[in-house]
């Protein structure tokens, strides 16, 4: 304890200073730059840049991609977490690995996968052409690429939590006569709701911000297949920096909201986990009295 008080205060301050400097340069400054550049030309220029038709179309497409991709991946995440945590079966660890696979695939390659499958010269190309369905270089392609990139997010958050929670509560509900759906709705869902929301928030942030995969399948048609990140790229490459940063500032705002909701949820989750481990502690002690 003496060690702590006198001579060990300098490493402490060194650590804090290095941390704050490093994070200031790498995290705070880029964020400041986004807003500074966005408002450099004044509010009027800013407002014009984000209400211009192409920018508005990009916002709508980005929202559309997220609105489709996030719920689909959330439903998948719940199903996958349910089967992986409530049951024992052969091939379980393989399934777990495969769910993580999209994390290890570079986004550009992910986009390319769907060109190979659904593009004009792809596997389903002739068939899609005959049916006059366009997926690649059109809106559906953007949604599919977004689905792939955000695929594991919800499952990833749910699996560890549901593993920890076990099956006792569900089994109790079942033995009391609840139906399968009722058990899920009244027992499981309330237990996982914050983790589910957490996964959805992360999934949404990635869905709205994805660049590489979407860029490959988009074809960059202005006002039609440009999402916000792609619109930023076009504006930036045209040296229209104020407009590029204006659109970027909207996404930066989304990132800040995501971080705020995320840390609020983390706090809630931690408290809930503490509470449940406390309850487990009490219940866990009882059997020892019986024997």
């Amino acid at each position: 304890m003496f060690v702590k008080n006198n001579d060990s205060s300098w490493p402490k301050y060194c650590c804090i200073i290095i941390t704050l400097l490093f994070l200031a340069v790498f995290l705070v400054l880029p964020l400041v730059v986004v807003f500074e550049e966005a408002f450099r030309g004044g509010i009027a220029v800013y407002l014009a840049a984000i209400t211009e038709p192409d920018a508005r179309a990009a916002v709508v497409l980005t929202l559309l991609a997220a609105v489709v991709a996030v719920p689909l991946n959330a439903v998948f995440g719940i199903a996958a977490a349910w089967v992986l945590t409530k049951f024992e079966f052969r091939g379980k660890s393989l399934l777990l690995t495969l769910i993580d696979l999209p994390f290890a695939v570079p986004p550009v390659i992910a986009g390319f996968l769907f060109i190979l499958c659904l593009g004009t010269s792809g596997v389903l190309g002739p068939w899609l052409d005959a049916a006059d369905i366009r997926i690649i270089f059109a809106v559906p392609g953007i949604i599919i690429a977004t689905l792939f990139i955000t695929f594991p997010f919800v499952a990833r958050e749910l699996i560890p939590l549901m593993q920890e929670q076990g099956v006792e509560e569900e089994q109790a509900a079942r033995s009391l006569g609840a139906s399968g759906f009722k058990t899920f709705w009244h027992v499981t869902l309330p237990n996982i709701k914050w983790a589910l929301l957490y996964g959805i928030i992360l999934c949404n942030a990635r869905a709205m911000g994805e660049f590489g995969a979407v860029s490959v399948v988009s074809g960059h048609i202005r006002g039609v297949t440009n999402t916000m990140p792609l619109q930023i790229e076009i504006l930036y490459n045209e040296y229209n920096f104020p407009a590029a940063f204006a659109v970027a500032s909207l996404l930066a705002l989304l990132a800040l909201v995501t971080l705020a909701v995320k840390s609020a949820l983390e706090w809630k989750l931690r408290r809930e986990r503490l509470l449940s481990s406390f309850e487990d502690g009490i219940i866990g002690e009882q059997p020892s009295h019986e024997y």
Partner: protein
Amino acid sequence: MRLQHRQRHFMPGFGISLGYTVFYLSLLVLIPMSVLGLKAFSLDGKVYLDILRDPRTLAAFKLTFGAAFAGAGINLVFGFIVAWTLVRHPFPGRRMVDALVDLPFALPTAVSGIALTTLFARTGLIGRVLEPLGIQIAFAPAGVIVALTFIGLPFIVRTLQPALEDLDPEYEEASLSLGASRLRTFLTVIFPSLRPALLSGFALAFARALGEYGSVVFISGNMPMRTEIVSLLIMGKLEQFDYDGATALAVMTLLLSFMILLLLNLLQWRLGRRTQQGG
């Protein structure tokens, strides 16, 4: 009721959840990946040879893997300091700083790309300081490393934090009070128990950096042979509708990165076993 108790799957919904999981996974991930695999096998060997002989390929692979390695390495050092500070040295505003660590994860890569470029370019806030010193970051290989460091930071900090929380300060205090120097305490007491977490954080940051595209394309300047990453090379092939070349590059990238990740996992598994046996 009693019969149900004895059933193997007393929990409901096994069939439907497994079926849906496998169906959705196949549709979105497995089938597209297999299509790439099949295409890779059907390619003429000449396509691969052409790609391998192209000096641009080698330069891009060197830069991508090298910069990913360097970025993850820088994060190993600074990420450790950040995680250590956040866990061990409470200071005012720590909760906010802690939340901010996830920014690279939440901020779309195109946004971080243009922000970092503006910051590190010759006229930028940081570039202006480094330029007279002869250090060029934006539009140079160093810019790629900066972007990948930015992207990888949360992965290392978030894997280290729980490991550091589990680390009991009593061991360090014991080591210090027995007369060991601070460096020795760090190397023999703290470092060994953090090795698995450091390794898995490194692997996560490295994997993410290998595929990173959005933040890199802006800051790198995309000069062939000098600042061109593999993802950009693939993008170039796609723009020329050279799907054979893109397939060859994609498969080579995937194989190489899977191999490295497998290696890191094996290393971690062995380390984990050794720590367990030791403990």
